[in-house]
């Protein structure tokens, strides 16, 4: 099979370009390719059932611009690097095989100045705050902002016809939500087309990373997306520890898994209430926000923070968990479990709720595969992928999580996946607490040498979180690219809403609950 050949080539190629060996996450292979091979590989990955994980650009020590792409397949992760010569303006785009690549390529053009050959060349993360000629990840100058803040005109694709009108929403939203803009084209109540415009929360995270040392970058990684702090900081540390050839004690990785599953539980509990609330069932929000609060308080009492922004650190975890803490957490989880089951029965038997959930915002399995829907939302549309099961890093090989998959692809399915994942994460947390290995929770790690490359991949609650890390001189970060699964999933919402009514948008949107900050960077 064509896809297999690329993995073999990457595994056997003795002529490794220095920039193609990636440490960190399990089963990552790198290969430097020509422009032709770049597209050919994309085609073979797509036809072989592989998926696009991330696409980004970096500049090496000698000033070569490199565009990189990470694919995931059954065999593992394949990272291709394409050196873009200075004389050649455009590199070959891969949108025809991976539609979600379009926005990633547009972001690369905004931040690094490398353009793809694909047709949509509208800016994506760049609005009017800095000029087109400035490329934040390449140019040394700091602040070329225009004298007065302005709003640019973004060419939305218009829909024309009798009775069609547009509803613009955002960037400031009606609720307590992150900023973004939605342009609906509607007839009556029915949505004909939705076009998203994101980038409002862009605060220069990737450039900011280059001002951090390798051993302190996890603080920023944890704040790429506040609801996925553990996943991002773990992915960062995984890349870093791979580059430093560090070996972590068992207790450290088990504590990280505990934190990751607690983060999953907290987010799922919050969403289970918020989704019902968007269907007019305030009771659900009241009950689930109460359970979430109980969980956060137990987390604070035992681990020290409600949201674990600084728990995962290079070499392990910042704090250990006492035996009293273990007991307290076991008790807290045991209190929550039966309540979730009781509430699920109430949700399932509520005719009005079912009416809102079933058949709303459907993404069929075929469409999901075509567009590359990933993570939790993907698993609700038959995309049976979960890094914890497919490419497990320690300790998930031992924990063996159950993969939760549904095929209906509607709001009800995304809710059901969350309910089932709450049950599964509860089981995992209980097992971790009972079997927590003894030993140290942290080891000292050394600074990776210049030019070392690393990849970190952790299945956060929303989906696969990816970090690509490159070591610079003097222990500093040369490049860090964090990638949230929202990049893949935002474009799918544009499809999920078609033919639904406008008032169902908040419900459908919440059932995905994608990140703005994690995407806008």
């Amino acid at each position, binding site marked *: 099979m064509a896809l297999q050949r690329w993995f073999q080539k990457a595994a056997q190629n003795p002529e490794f370009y220095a920039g193609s060996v990636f440490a960190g996450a399990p089963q990552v292979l790198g290969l430097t390719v020509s422009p032709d091979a770049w597209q050919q590989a994309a085609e073979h990955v797509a036809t072989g059932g592989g998926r696009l994980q991330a696409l980004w650009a970096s500049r090496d020590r000698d000033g070569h611009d490199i565009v990189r792409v990470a694919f995931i397949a059954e065999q593992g992760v394949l990272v291709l690097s394409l050196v873009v010569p200075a004389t050649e303006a455009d590199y070959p785009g891969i949108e025809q095989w991976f539609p979600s690549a379009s926005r990633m390529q547009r972001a690369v053009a905004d931040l690094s100045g490398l353009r793809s050959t694909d047709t949509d060349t509208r800016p994506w993360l760049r*609005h*009017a*705050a*800095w000029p087109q000629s*400035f490329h*934040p990840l390449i140019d040394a100058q*700091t*602040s*070329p*902002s225009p004298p007065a*803040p*302005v*709003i640019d005109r973004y060419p939305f694709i218009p829909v024309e016809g009798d009775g069609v009108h547009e509803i613009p929403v955002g*960037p*400031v939203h*009606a*609720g*307590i*939500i*992150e*900023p973004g803009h939605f342009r609906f084209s509607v007839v009556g109540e029915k949505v004909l087309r939705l076009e998203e415009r994101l*980038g*409002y*929360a*862009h*605060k*220069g*995270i990737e*450039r*900011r990373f280059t001002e951090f040392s390798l051993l302190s970058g996890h*603080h*920023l990684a944890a*704040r*790429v*997306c*506040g*609801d996925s702090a553990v996943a991002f900081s773990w992915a960062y540390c995984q890349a870093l520890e791979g580059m430093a050839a560090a070996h972590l004690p068992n207790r450290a990785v088990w504590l990280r898994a505990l934190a990751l599953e607690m983060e999953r539980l907290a987010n799922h509990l919050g969403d289970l209430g918020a989704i019902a609330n968007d269907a007019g069932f305030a*009771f659900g*929000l*009241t*009950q689930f*926000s*109460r359970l*979430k*609060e109980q969980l*956060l308080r137990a987390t604070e009492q035992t681990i020290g923070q*409600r*949201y674990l*922004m600084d728990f995962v650190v290079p070499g392990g975890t910042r704090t250990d968990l006492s035996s009293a803490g273990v007991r307290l957490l076991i008790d807290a989880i045991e209190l929550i479990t039966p309540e979730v089951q*009781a*509430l699920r*029965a*109430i949700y399932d*038997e*509520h005719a009005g709720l079912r009416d809102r959930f079933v058949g709303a915002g459907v993404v069929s399995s075929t469409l999901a595969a075509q567009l590359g829907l990933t993570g939790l939302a993907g698993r609700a549309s038959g995309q049976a992928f979960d890094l914890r099961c497919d490419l497990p890093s320690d300790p998930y090989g031992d924990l063996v999580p159950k993969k939760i998959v549904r095929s209906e692809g509607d709001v009800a399915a995304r809710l059901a996946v969350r309910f089932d994942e709450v049950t599964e994460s509860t089981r995992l947390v209980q097992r971790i607490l009972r079997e927590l290995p003894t030993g140290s929770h942290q080891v000292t790690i050394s600074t990776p040498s210049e030019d070392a490359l690393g990849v970190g991949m952790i299945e956060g609650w929303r989906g696969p979180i990816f970090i690509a890390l490159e070591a610079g001189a003097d222990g500093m970060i040369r490049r860090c690219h964090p990638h949230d699964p929202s990049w893949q999933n935002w474009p799918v919402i544009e499809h999920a809403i078609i033919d639904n009514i406008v008032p169902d948008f908040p419900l459908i949107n919440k059932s995905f609950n994608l*990140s*703005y*900050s*994690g995407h*806008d960077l």
Partner: protein
Amino acid sequence: MLKTLGKICRTGIITEPPPLGDDSLRIIDALQSRILEILGRALCIRAIDAGSCNGCELEIHALNNPLYNIEGLGIRFVASPRHADLLLVTGPVAKNMEVALRRTYDATPDPKLVVAIGDCGCTGGIFGESYASCGRVANVIPVDVAVPGCPPSPRQILTGIVTAITEAVPQTSRLRQSG
């Protein structure tokens, strides 16, 4: 329906006293009457995320859970700046949000209060000022109270809101704070 009602009854009222001192009931009355004195009705808050990581939003959401029960204090979140007395602003202000934040501030009727939430809202936090970030909220609009924390707890946020409403005297016009 019976299950739902049963659950409501079994859960009972779990709201905790607000972080205002010992004699909580009297102080709730005082706070409510102070709000009524100033506004003549409930305090209406408009939350604006000007570029945060979403961490502060999670804790602002928590204020609506039944343990903090912010509506029970006569404070509620509204969907438009036109309805708001107080703006709760999070994040370092992303340059891409600068105009939207200014317009939201301008659309809020006087007298109005602004509470900046989180380390980023207070100082720019870990993101600082850059080609893409204006830094702290006070660099863009006048701020009355700033609540540090990453993220601040719901109690700390509530304390910030209460501080703004009880101690600051809203003015119809104020000069922009200098950098």
